Every structure is written in C-alpha cells, then in structure tokens.
C-alpha cells in the first residue's frame, strides 16, 4: 500500500509480511527522492519467556524454550542444554555432542528446505508462494518437499517428532536411537544429499541483484567441522571470544528512528549479521569437500556479501548437513549411556549454537536447588534486525526510481533474505509501535 504525499514524498507500507515466520510489517518513507525512514515493525505479541522461566527447574528449559519457535526448536533445546550444563559444571560425553549434532542436521535440512523452496524461491521465480509455483515448476517444489521430508524424518528418528522433539534432556537424551535404526535411514539421507546437490545447482541459476553490504559477520567457529551445535564466537573483524562473554560483548540499544532494540557489538558502530552468510564467510574452510565443491560450482568465493545469494549458501549448507548426518551415522556404535546426571548447583551458565537463522545465545542463573533465577535469550532475528533495516535503507535509496509495486516486491524479498523468524525475535524485542 502506498501513500503519495503532497510534498512529493511517498510512504511504502506492507501491512503483513508474507512467507516469514511470525508477524511483521514494513514501512519505508521517502522525502523527495531520499529515504527518510525505514522501519521493520514487529507486531507479534510478546509471550514473556524470560519472565516465566524464573522459578522453573533447571531440567525444564529444553522443553519450555523449544516452544519459542516451531521451526527451530532444536536450536533452543541445544543452546539451553549447553547453558544449564555449563552452570552446573557438567561436561557431556562426545556421543551426546554427536547426537545433538545429528538431530541439529535434521533441523537445518527441514528449516533450510522450507525457506529455500517454499518461502524464498518464489521471490526469484516470480510467484506469490510455492503452491502457485508448483503448477509451472513442479520439479522444484517436489525437490524442496522431498528434502524437507528427509529433514523431518531425521528429526523424528532422533527426537521423536520434528516440531518440539521429546527426546532431548539436560545431560543428553532419554534414549539413543540404535545404530541399526540409524543405518536403516542411510538410503533416504543419500537421496537427500543428491537432492541437496541438485538444489545448489537450481538456486545458483537464479538471477541476483548486484548488492553488497559491508556489515560485520558474527558466527560460531568449532574446533573441527562446520559450526552447527557448538563453538566459540568469531567475527569478520578478527575478534574472537568464548560464548561466556556474549552478554558483555553484545549490547542491545535504542536507535532513535525505530524504537526497537538493535544488537551491536560493543565498540562497533555498524550493524552485524548472523546466519548462513556469516557462518559461511567465517567457516567456508571447514566445509566438507563435497559441500566446498558445490559452493565453488555455484560461483561462491570464500566469503559472500550479497544477501540475495543467501539462498545459495543455504543450499550449500543443505549439502553439508546431509553429508555430516551420514558421517555421524556411519561412525555411530551402540553401547554408550544416552545421558549423564546434571546435579544442580548455584551458578551462571552460557550456551550457544547455530540456529538455521544464526547464532542463538542462552544464559541462565540457577540457585543451589537448581531453580532458575534469571534467564536471557538472544535469538538470531533480533540480532539481524539492524542489518535488515540497513539493507532496506540502502536498497530503497538505490532503487527509488522503481515503481511502488516493484520496489515493494524487492524490499519484501530483501527481508526474506534473512529468513526472519519473528516469533523468535519478538519475545525479546521492544515492540515498535507507530503512534501517528
């Protein structure tokens, strides 16, 4: 919807952003030819997770925080487990880390397939949604649905179900799937790996606007492998710090134009970005050979600064997740205990993992009985909000000569580049309320 203003300015407004998780809106105001105001408005109602976690037992955050997001519950469960185990001074066995990684691969496959094919591809191919796209591009939609199904099936195998898995607990799992069950899943995963490679070649053939942004990237980096379930923090400016410092290193502050809290790195003025582009740019050396080759064939360098190309990076990460899941399954042997005891103690703990949309931080303060006294959750979408607005601002300035319809489409597309999960972000952000 567009309002022409009498002074020659115009306001571009989208009331309900489609194909994003949660409820958000966009407003761009022009004065003359200049962008006066850019506004990603989040009107998703708050649910107060950090408040009602207080007074709950230290065993509860995996089940409770999973409910923050139906699309990435494993991210919440994993970050919560690390943070509680850290507070209690418990280090889980390697098998637990590997099974967390395997479950997380399922979530990456499910979530990335959903975004690449059902939410993002329609922008490139010119459709309102995947159902509409299915008539002309049945192969593309079927490829996406098949990959998504494989991700969900992997989550069901390890976690019991794909939305809010039941098998995750502080200290590990209730039950490990048997090696035979995991091996039986191999053929489906091999098909998924082949599909993911096809996905890379399909999406790398899309047309990408020339658009690069200078933001700082923030991602986890693991001791080995591509960062998924664990790691410490690195930035493209060359900074590195342990997850336990995130609360001091990242500040959330007000910017006058939007009333929303934007995350900044302490000491930095530019917005920073988390998510596939950041992960890839800081860890492309850690990809498996097959994913690295796919990235090269798709024309990606060691880093990528064009947010429109995030769809290619997500497809490369689909390859990595399928390959990694196969590797874990092939190495799995039965016989280890699925969990260790995590006796409560008074203390503070930190955890982070790479949600499909970027780094997800948790912090808990426990009392001696294990009751939660304080909780802090910093989801990726709230960290990316400043970058989304910076993109919109730069884009609207560059493309202000486009007609409203085309500009609106492109700006919506720019927001979907981030796969924003507004359901996640809202519960921790100040709502941006327009009072006119």
């Amino acid at each position, binding site marked *: 919807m567009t309002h022409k203003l009498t002074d020659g300015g115009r306001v571009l407004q989208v009331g*309900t952003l*489609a*194909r*994003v*998780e*949660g409820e958000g809106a966009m407003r761009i105001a022009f004065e003359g030819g200049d962008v006066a105001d850019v506004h990603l408005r989040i*009107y*998703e*109602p*708050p*649910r*107060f*997770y*950090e*408040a*009602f976690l*207080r007074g*709950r*037992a230290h065993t*509860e955050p995996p*089940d*409770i925080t999973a*409910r*923050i*997001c*139906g*699309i990435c*519950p494993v991210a919440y469960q994993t970050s919560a487990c690390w943070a509680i185990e850290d507070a209690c001074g418990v280090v889980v066995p390697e098998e637990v880390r590997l099974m967390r990684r395997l479950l997380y691969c399922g979530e990456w496959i499910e979530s990335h397939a959903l975004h690449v094919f*059902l*939410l993002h591809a*329609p922008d490139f191919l010119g459709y*309102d*949604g*995947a*159902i509409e796209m*299915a008539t002309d591009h*049945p192969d593309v939609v*079927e490829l996406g*649905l*098949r990959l*998504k*199904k494989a991700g*969900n099936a992997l989550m069901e195998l390890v976690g*019991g*179900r794909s*939305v*809010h898995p*039941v*098998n995750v*607990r502080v200290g590990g799992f*209730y*039950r490990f799937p048997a090696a035979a069950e995991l091996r039986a899943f191999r053929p489906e995963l091999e098909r998924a790996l082949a599909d993911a490679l096809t996905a890379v070649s399909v999406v790398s053939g899309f047309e990408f606007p020339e658009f690069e942004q200078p933001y700082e990237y923030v991602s986890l980096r693991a001791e080995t492998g591509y960062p998924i379930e664990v790691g410490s923090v690195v930035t493209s400016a060359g900074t590195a710090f342990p997850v336990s410092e995130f609360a001091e290193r990242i500040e959330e502050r007000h910017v006058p134009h939007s*009333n929303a*809290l934007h995350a900044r790195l302490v000491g930095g003025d530019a917005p920073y970005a988390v998510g596939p582009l950041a992960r890839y740019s800081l860890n492309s050396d850690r990809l498996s050979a097959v994913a690295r080759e796919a990235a090269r064939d798709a024309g990606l360098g060691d880093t990528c600064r064009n947010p429109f190309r995030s769809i290619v990076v997500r497809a490369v990460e689909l390859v990595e997740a399928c390959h990694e899941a196969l590797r874990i399954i092939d190495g799995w042997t039965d016989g280890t205990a699925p969990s260790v005891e995590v006796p409560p103690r008074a203390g503070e703990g930190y955890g982070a993992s790479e949600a499909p949309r970027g780094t997800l931080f948790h912090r808990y303060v426990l009392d001696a009985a294990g009751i939660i006294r304080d909780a802090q959750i910093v989801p990726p979408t709230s960290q990316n909000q400043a970058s989304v607005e910076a993109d919109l601002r730069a884009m609207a300035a560059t493309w202000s000569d486009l007609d409203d319809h085309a500009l609106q489409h492109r700006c919506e597309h720019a927001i979907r580049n981030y796969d924003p999960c507004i*359901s996640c972000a809202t*519960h*921790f952000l*100040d*709502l941006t*309320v327009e009072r006119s």
Partner: protein
Amino acid sequence: MTARPKLAVWKFASCDGCQLTLLNCEDELVPLAGEIEIAYFPEATRAVVEGPYDVSLVEGSITTPGDLERIHQVRAVSRRLVTIGACATSGGIQALRNFADVAEFRSVVYAHPEYLSTLDRSTPIAAHVTVDFELRGCPIDRRQLLELLAAELTGRRPRIPTYSVCVECKRRGSVCVMVADGTPCLGPVTQAGCGALCPAFSRGCYGCFGPQDTPNTRSEADRLRALGMGEDQVLRVFRTFNAGSEPFRQESRRHEPQEQPQEQPQEQPQEQEVTS
C-alpha cells in the same frame, strides 16, 4: 466443476509450529491444494483470496487488545472455525502469566514496558468466539490434522479420540514407564494424539495434548508424590503448555504454597488491558 472450499490459516500468539505442521504434510500438500483452495495463509503465500472462508484454522492465543478484536473479525468471515494447538485451545505456555503479575513480567523482559500493549491473561479462542472444533497438541499431530481436513471436506465429524495416552501406549506395545521404571508420567490424565511418543523414548508423558475427557488429576498427583515428587514439582508438571486448561489449572492450584497469593477466579472479566 464445483468451487473448492476455501481454507484460511490465522495466527495469534504462538510459535508457528502448528501451522508448520500443515506444511509438513509434504506428500499431501500439493494434492490437498487441488481439493482445497488455500485462500489465506500468509506464512506460505503472499496471495490473498477474499473471504468468507469455508474453514479457518486458528493458531495461537489471545494476548493483546488488537487480537481480541481480530478474532471476532476472523469468526465473522469463517463458516467453520477450528483451533489448532495448545495455545489456541488452552492459552499455551504463555498462559503462565495468568498465575503471575503481568506488569512484573513485562519489566523483566522489556526495557521499556510502556511500549507494550498486552492483556493480563492469555486466553484460548473459545473464551471469545464460538469454536466448531478444537485440535489439541503442542504441537498438533500431522495425522490428526489430515483427518480433520478430510472430515471438513466431506462434512463429517473428525475421528479424534478423547481418551488417554495410556490407551495409545498399550496399543503401541510400549512398556509402562510409570509401573516398570517408576518414571513420573502424565499419560493417565493426558489426551491421546501424539502416538504415545514419550514412553517409546523411555520418558514419561509431559502433557502436550492437555487433559483427556475424564482426567483424575488428584489421583495422578498422589501417584506423582508417591514416586518422590515434591509439591513444587507436581505444581510445575501441571503448569506447562496446557496450564490454562481447567483440570490442569485446578490441579496445579492445589499444590500452591499456602502463603502464595491466590490466582484471580476464572469467572472475572479478563479483557482488561494493562495500562501502559
């Protein structure tokens, strides 16, 4: 060819997991779109087909003054209105605010609580408008969703059992974790629908589908205490995703410490907006 029935999917306060369950019907999604016109589903498509709609699926609970108005508009454009998931049928995990001081909640999470416009309670859809059917679960079950849509298409009542998880668990052939291992389990008081997942993973049920049709929560609580749970733990197991459902709400209140201020009675008007 007769017109396909029009389906709309609406979101209120929720995690999106129940509407995602519709997109998780990977094998059925494209054929389904041939039978039903997906007329309004912003999470999946920008296209909007004007109402009225034959079937509306409603996810999420009512927590803001704006949503309180919106749900009446949704009802007005819907021939049949079906709620999907624990948020829409019992207020969801965010109904934990109903047991607390929401002003304090706001100041814990938000630096500037005055910007927020929120109600002091999270309430189910049926507290505000007539609901034609409620599909339980946190999240809903994919097979139950397909059964529901098939029933809506043919104009029959969906076959959704209201008995307990125990029935499903026996049928699945799982060993009872409560009897065999002494693991606390809410299966006896919780409605079936998940396929008795947790006991199959050596875990007790934790109540995702809310109370079954005749839940003996008092006896369940006695059993949980006998297995070694304290009053505070019993309170918490009844106070999760379906904390706002009447049987679970009442049972949790029985385990509140005496000195804790009592929750306001259910009958009081709930639509007071928190002043901001």
